[in-house]
């Protein structure tokens, strides 16, 4: 629960950013969703945020839970002693969360919550979380969501994460580009960088302390690294031609990038400590969009060396690439699932660009989005959900979809939003 100082500062910015709020809509649902009730917490008046409501929204939007509406609750206990288990069982609520935000004898605030199994009448979780900064209650709520998600589903929750994305509005040279960062539920959007030149390709460092991105400065592109804790930006590389597609290695020590200064776009790996650079591909086609396998041994990238752009896999030490996509007219911008077994990518078939999941062992492809111009897929931590950019009725917006394709939510704000990148889990 250690949060960089800047995030606290960013909360102060919420009023500035309020008009850029991401609006969320959820459609579909998991047929196997777990029933759960989140009873409103008993809270001291100074704790303004409705913690139970944030937890409710987190779990519902994941698509993995069916959350009981508040107006259907027959009792509202705030601690396990007050729970009438048969009442909840009769409503089909196998799981129940109760909690409080209260003041300890020493004057400090704390949140306490319990996850209860109403079938067995047993306590599955019980935690007390000290609250040092009342402006960070939302993060406490996401933490509680993460604990419940992991306990009931056996995989880590991803609610206390961030999404970086690019927003743009205006036409022609009046167009304004912003690199934005928001909580995973779309709250607290804030601007990290703004430019009248394009900003592109945000990428999180594995420790989520830094963001790499592409910017243009005086008619040239460059890769920059933004450090969250200090707000500082440093230029990593600005060769003539293309400087693009930054992707951090899983150990955070290297970055795969695209450069074209030696002729045309090829993949390079830069050592972030020494600055040493190694060329990984050397082909007259366009080689770009590298992403690392979770173990850091391989890269996938897009290349049109065979005619149409397709996805290839290559050892991170170089060598001969192997084509891995054969379905559809073209496939681009692949990234590995956290378990390394599949790729999320942009598949083109019949003029439609949709998000596909390719099983690397079987070669089977499943399309999990249904737009015409979907792009920029990125796995949420844990791999249960993919975020991507799509063309909505009011402009480019972000969407998430569960990997089974069943639950979808859209995140939109005024203007175009695109190129989402989901942060790693806080470790």
């Amino acid at each position, binding site marked *: 629960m250690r949060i960089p*100082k*800047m995030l*606290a*500062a960013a909360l*102060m*910015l919420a009023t*500035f950013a309020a008009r850029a709020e991401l609006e969320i809509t959820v459609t579909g649902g998991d047929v196997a969703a777990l029933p759960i009730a989140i009873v409103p917490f008993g809270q001291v008046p100074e704790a303004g945020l409705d913690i139970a409501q944030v937890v409710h929204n987190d779990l519902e939007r994941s698509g993995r839970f069916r959350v009981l509406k508040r107006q259907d609750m027959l009792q509202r206990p705030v601690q396990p002693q007050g729970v009438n288990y048969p009442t909840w069982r009769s409503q089909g609520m196998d799981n129940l969360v109760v909690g409080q935000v209260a003041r300890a004898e020493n004057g400090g605030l704390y949140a306490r919550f319990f996850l209860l199994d109403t079938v067995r009448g047993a306590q599955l979780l019980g935690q007390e979380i000290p609250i040092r900064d009342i402006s960070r209650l939302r993060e406490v709520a996401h933490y509680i969501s993460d604990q419940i998600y992991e306990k009931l589903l056996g995989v880590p929750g991803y609610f206390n994460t961030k999404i970086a994305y690019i927003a743009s509005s205006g*036409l*022609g*040279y*009046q*167009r304004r*580009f912003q690199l934005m960062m928001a909580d995973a539920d779309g709250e607290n959007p804030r*601007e*990290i*960088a*703004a*430019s*009248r*030149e*394009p900003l*592109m*390709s945000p990428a999180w460092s594995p420790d989520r302390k830094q963001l790499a991105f592409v*910017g*243009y*400065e*005086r*008619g*040239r*592109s460059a890769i*920059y690294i*933004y450090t969250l804790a*200090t*707000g*500082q*930006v440093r230029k990593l590389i600005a060769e003539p*031609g*293309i400087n*693009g597609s930054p992707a951090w290695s899983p150990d955070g020590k290297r970055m795969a990038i*695209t450069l*074209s200064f030696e002729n*045309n*776009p090829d993949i390079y790996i830069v050592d972030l400590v020494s600055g040493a650079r190694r060329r990984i591909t050397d082909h007259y086609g*366009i080689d*770009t*969009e590298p992403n690392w396998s979770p173990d850091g041994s391989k890269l996938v990238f*897009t290349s049109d060396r065979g005619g*149409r*752009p397709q996805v290839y896999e290559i050892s991170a030490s170089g060598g001969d690439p192997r084509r891995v996509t054969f379905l559809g007219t*073209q496939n*681009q*911008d692949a990234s590995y699932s956290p378990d390394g077994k599949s790729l999320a990518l*942009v598949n*083109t078939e019949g003029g439609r*660009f949709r998000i596909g999941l390719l099983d690397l062992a079987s070669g089977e492809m499943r399309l999990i989005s249904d737009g*015409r*111009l979907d*792009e920029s897929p990125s796995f949420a931590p844990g791999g249960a959900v993919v975020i991507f950019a799509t063309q909505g009725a009011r402009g480019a917006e972000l969407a998430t979809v569960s990997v089974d394709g069943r639950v979808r939510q859209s995140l939109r704000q005024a203007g175009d939003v*695109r*190129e989402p990148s989901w942060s790693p889990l806080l470790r």
Partner: protein
Amino acid sequence: MSHLYIRFVPVLAAALFLGACASTGEHESTDTPTQVPGTTEQPSTPYSDNVVEGSTVLGGEASSSFDAAVASERGLSTNVVYFAYDDSSIAPEYQSVIEQYAKYLSANPSAKLRLEGHADERGTREYNVGLGERRANAVQAALTAQGASDAQLSIISYGEERPADVGHDEAAWSKNRRVQLIRQ
């Protein structure tokens, strides 16, 4: 805490984008095609390309009262080459644009030209940056083959990031697959 806000947003603006973020809202002058006296008036936005029927003024119309340089500049009012989908070959209809610019550059050795490559929104963003560069390279090769020197030419690709038309159909896409030739 508001001082922290000042620390990270404006510091960044200073570090990266100062020139581009002037409070007048104007774009850097280096990115704006310069207007040459005597040519068709530049539209207010550089993205409204000079390809309206009848608006192009080719060399044949130059009267003898103009010197050769002005005459060749008059031919430069068409400053965009358009491309087919995922393709970087220059169609025959743009040969005259290439010829005019090549003539202008070889007649004016100190003149410089920026080639801005663009793509339509289909396909992924970074791939499209590659595609835009490939198109600009094709125009560069055509110009140098006809007498321009590499030193006069610079290339930048914006991929699909700066559409001339923000629509989502072929009419818009065909305007976005382009290389803009911009005199520096």
